[in-house]
């Protein structure tokens, strides 16, 4: 049974990848890093539910196997299908954002890093529905950087998704989606939270393709 579920998860994963490639011709631009297996936290802009599958789809197999998207438990546990796709296909680290819960998100994230996994996180916390390119970052990225200073924090810009599928539309447009990976950053010793988050936000904005500015 377990084997069957794993097999199904592989098939669903490949289908998502092929679908993403066929519709949006999604591709990676490795500007600041090489696509080599190394422990990293990919922090990305968040405008659509398709952001995470896009990043996941462009990672080469060796990197995809060790990467775990950090995602909201309330979204991914809503029904049986999501509960299969989130944890088993994407191998998500599910975090519960409600303040009354005992196991804190950061503990689970640090635990995943200590297992050697790479992570995909969206430091804006929520989907960005505004005209601004980025919302202010939450503290999570800083806390990770302080707790595990050796891990590379890689700014990852997902371009075009708002135009492919704006909120409220039904038909996706087959435009080209690009995922740009920038140069990794780290928390400097003694750097304040606000300074670091500002620097991280600027590093992410710098990955925006020229044509979309």
């Amino acid at each position, binding site marked *: 049974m377990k084997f069957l579920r794993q097999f199904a998860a592989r098939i669903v994963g490949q289908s998502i990848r092929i679908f993403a490639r066929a519709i949006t*011709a999604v*591709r990676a631009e490795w500007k600041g890093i090489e696509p080599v297996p190394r422990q990293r936290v990919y922090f990305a802009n968040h405008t659509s539910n398709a952001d995470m599958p896009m990043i996941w789809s462009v990672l080469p197999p060796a990197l995809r196997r060790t990467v775990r998207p950090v995602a909201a438990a309330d979204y991914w546990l809503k029904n049986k299908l999501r509960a299969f796709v989130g944890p088993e296909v994407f191998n998500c680290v599910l975090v519960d954002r409600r303040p009354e819960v005992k196991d804190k998100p950061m503990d689970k994230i640090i635990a995943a890093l200590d297992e050697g996994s790479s992570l995909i996180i969206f430091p804006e916390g929520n989907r960005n529905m505004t005209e601004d390119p980025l919302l202010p970052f939450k503290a999570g990225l800083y806390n990770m950087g302080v707790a595990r200073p050796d891990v590379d924090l890689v700014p990852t810009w997902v371009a*075009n998704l708002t*135009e492919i599928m*704006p909120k*409220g*539309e039904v*038909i996706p*447009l*087959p*435009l*080209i989606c690009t995922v740009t990976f920038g140069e990794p950053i780290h928390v400097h010793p003694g750097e304040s939270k606000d300074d670091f988050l500002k620097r991280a936000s600027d590093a992410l904005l710098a990955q925006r*393709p*020229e*044509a979309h500015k």
Partner: protein
Amino acid sequence: MSSTTADILLLALGSFGILITLTVLGEILRARQPVHDANPMLDTYMTRVQSWWGMVAFIGAALLLGKPGIMTLFAFASFAALREFLTLTTKTQADHLALALAFFAVLPLQYVFVGFGWTGLYTVFIPVYAFLFLPMISALRGNPQRFLVRVAETQWALMIAVFCVSHVPALMSLDIAGYGDRSVLLIAFLVMVVQIGDLLDFFFGRRIGRTKIAPGLSPKTWEGLVCGVLSAMVIGAMLSWITPFGLWGAALMAGIASLVGMFGNLVVAAIKRDRGVKDWSHLIPGQGGFVDQLDSVIFAAPIFYQLTKFFYT
């Protein structure tokens, strides 16, 4: 085997011969190269030759499959080109439905009209019907911001990626006296003279090019352009046996197609410069996107089609 099929096979074999020569040449250069010395020019050349292999194989197979093969191939090329173009144009959410219609209604319909050979429809469908109706659909959503820019850029994308590209397979529906079912060979003729003209323009431009045509836009030179067009004319004359044009007619048609294609290349370069991109996309390894590879054929196709229709039908 019909004589048309035999001619397609002969052309394919000829192209394979040229590609084998180019590949062997590249491999010899690479073998001479010291192992640790990087040579980006040679690498670019080799990836280009590799994607030409793919192109020749695809177009050859499509020509052999006849109409369904050709229609599928060029409909896909249009889709890829439209996707590349519309990725870079100005748009807002108000255009979403109009853009979805461009992809999922206008494009397939244009190829249906071309497939059935309805000349009266496929020559006006995009310049008249899509031109008038798509802006109405955008207007219904009530966002006036940059409206003219949005609808103009969408229309441009459709003209280039769908209207112009579809004129390549439309060559098949031309009824040329005494030419019979051989009009499929006009596609091979057009693509070959324009592409080889481009290649030699690039080669001579590198060798003897001095005077840039449009500095700040493209490295294209007048010297390269003249040599490229003359080479296209020679190739056209050599291929006159597959055309209904006769020797001089074939040379002239090849020259015009190649010339239009080269200036079309400048137009495309200007758009790319404006949008700050080097290539339209990364679909074809080593040569960017479909529009990068086919820009000259795209511009040449409607002119070549109209001239053939005017003088030879």
